[in-house]
């Protein structure tokens, strides 16, 4: 359903642009294309169309006008909330705009992008962001799959399981980060209290770049696996029971049933969960900010945190915009993956 909607919107947009470019003349063709594209049943073919050309043209014109009127608000809204900010961002990234100095903006071309290359903190932030994505997405997928399978078991009382799945998902990210910070605190943290039984000397998690990084990844995985579990649980419930019964009749054990029935049928749900997780994990911000503030030093700074720091703390909007453009294109890449996936399914 969503897929169809998305595709329709895409088609409508293309036609909008087409009409803008050539306002008169191609009305008939456009409508025909549209109808063909939409797969309208009972669409009259070209030969049958020809005799009624005049009346059709009149109708077409009003059709097109109507479509234009109906699409205009969406188009304007998209212009306002997507096209304008993105263009503004691209423009700002070409300026030396540092509000803290109160100086007027100065056009500097690609200078901001050039200084990215020599800015070690940018590379740290970029690497951290990609590493967080590479580590927490598969981890959350595995943990989420396990949780979804447990939640899908025929419990007599369903709500406690479902509720425990919902709670981490419903919690604000900043809270989770603060909770994570307390968990891993060296003096009074729960983690060190548990480890005390295994290891006599306490670990100071936030004194080391990679231990902080592990603590952050664990917290993100905990927070996000419930989202994955919810998506997968929805997928699991669409798998008809007959398939399992048939597989059992054919002599398949639980492992084979999982690998040959559950997993293949769950594939679309997994794809959706993974891509959604990837996009949000590329934008990781709240949890590291509240857990470590990017420390020790700059070892756990993410790209989103670095953008925020440059724009909000330093008011260096030009450089911040250049950083945001980088993140924008990375996110675009993943979104394209998602759209391709959705298209191949339908």
């Amino acid at each position, binding site marked *: 359903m969503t897929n169809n909607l998305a595709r329709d919107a895409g088609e409508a947009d293309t036609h909008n642009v087409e009409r803008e470019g050539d306002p008169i003349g191609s009305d008939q063709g456009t409508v025909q294309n549209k109808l063909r594209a939409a797969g309208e049943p009972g669409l009259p073919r070209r030969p049958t169309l020809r005799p009624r050309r005049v009346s059709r043209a009149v109708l077409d014109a009003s059709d097109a006008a109507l479509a234009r009127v109906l699409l205009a608000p969406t188009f304007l809204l998209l212009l306002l909330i997507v096209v304008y900010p993105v263009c503004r961002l691209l423009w700002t990234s070409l300026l030396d705009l540092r*509000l803290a100095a109160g100086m007027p903006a100065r056009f500097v071309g690609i200078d901001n992008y050039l200084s990215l290359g020599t800015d070690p903190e940018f590379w740290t932030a970029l690497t951290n962001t990609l590493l967080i994505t590479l580590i927490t997405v598969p981890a959350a997928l595995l943990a989420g799959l396990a949780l979804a399978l447990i939640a899908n078991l025929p419990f007599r009382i369903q709500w406690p399981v479902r509720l425990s799945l919902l709670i981490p998902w419903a919690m604000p990210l900043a809270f989770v980060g603060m909770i994570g910070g307390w968990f891993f605190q060296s003096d009074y943290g729960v983690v060190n209290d548990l480890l005390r039984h295994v290891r006599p000397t306490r670990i100071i998690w936030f*004194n080391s770049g990679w231990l902080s990084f592990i603590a952050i990844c664990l917290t993100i995985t905990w927070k996000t696996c419930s989202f994955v579990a919810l998506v997968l649980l929805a997928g699991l419930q669409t798998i008809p029971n007959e398939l399992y019964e048939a597989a059992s009749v054919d002599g398949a054990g639980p492992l084979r049933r999982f690998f040959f029935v559950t997993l293949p049928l769950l594939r679309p749900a997994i794809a959706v969960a993974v891509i959604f997780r990837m996009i949000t994990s590329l934008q990781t911000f709240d949890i590291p900010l509240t857990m470590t*503030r990017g420390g020790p030093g*700059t070892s756990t700074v993410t790209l989103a945190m670095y953008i925020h720091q440059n724009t909000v703390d330093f008011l260096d909007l030009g450089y911040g915009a250049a950083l945001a453009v980088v993140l924008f294109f990375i996110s675009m890449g993943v979104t394209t993956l998602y759209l391709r996936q959705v298209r191949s399914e339908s």
Partner: protein
Amino acid sequence: MTRILRPLLLLAALCALPAHAETTLNVFISSALRPEVMRQAFDQFEQANPGIKVVAQLGGATSDLQAQYLNTVLSAKDSSLDVLMLDIIRPAQFAATGWTLPLNKDVGTPAAFLKQYLPAYAEADMVDGKLVALPAFADAMFLYYRKDLLDKYHLPVPQTWTQLAKDAATIQAGEHDPQLQGVSFQGAPIEGTVCTFLLPYWSMGKSLVHDGRLTFDHAAAIKALDLWTGLVRQGVAPRNVAEIVTDQTRKDFEAGKAIFAVEWGYGWSFFQSADSAVKGKVAVAELPAVDGGKQVTCIGGWQWGVSAFSRHPAEAVRLVKFLSSAPVSTLLADKASLLPVFPPLYHDPKLVQAMPWLPQALPAVEQAKSRPVTPYYNDVSNVIRTQTNAVLAGSETPEQAADQMEARLKRVLR
């Protein structure tokens, strides 16, 4: 008689209401700087100025969080705040951006008017000939120490960090308490950590920024960082110092878990409160020097500014002038142990009774040094605090951090 009077009074009150609730001034203050005491000052102003209502808008607990909020609100030219409480490190940026109204013409001759305040504030609030804000209260970093423990081991107050480390080690060895820290200072990536770096750096007689130009001394920076890591290595400072924020130092010292603490003036009223474990056992001194250096401290303190986007600038200016007056300064010192901005108040008998160390604080506050004055202070601060934090966490060596600091500060002050 009352039968007639009461309805009349009620009627009068009803008539007066719309006229009197005309102007509301929104004042942005920190949630950590005793809003309940600030409220008393606002109440006094409301009584003296019928028709003006003062509403406190509580901002984040730390200077960094408040700056983030103000940056967002004021760069959007939002008029929802009328009066702003600003950390001493902000006026340069606010002067450059024009986010506060210059108060020059509201105080007669600024130079003469500012003479009544401590020189550091008169200097900080006057940027490029513009009077950006007026002083609210003073602050500086001090050395808090456990008088009872120093007396027990017959130790004088240390004048140098080396002496402090030795004294702390003696007491730690004598007390046999693994929980007892020698000295608590700030190492988390927060504003206070900028002062942590600057204290020994300044003590060597070096400066960081002069007239907007970088005057970074590489060797002194390494020595400054070495001093702190040395204290951690000797076991005098806790190993998790990279986690310690300003209020954690306050809590640890208040719980009796530290012999010495590097802390701002606000700590005093906490340490002397009823539920403090160290009540009556605390004293305050000037911060120690590096060997062969001079004793310096980092100046703090807060200012009142009028937002340039306020819809009631005249009333807001009146409020700011009231808030930066001697009676309010006395109130803040008396009720919240926030240091006065008027030198004579340091010898006020009533205040000295509440804060016996007040006369000693005056020379420290008078000689305290300001953090770099530049509109790009946020960038400068970030570079220093993240690098200092990295060194204290042990993820960078002092040499690496000094290299990084120099390279990044050059870019910021380009």
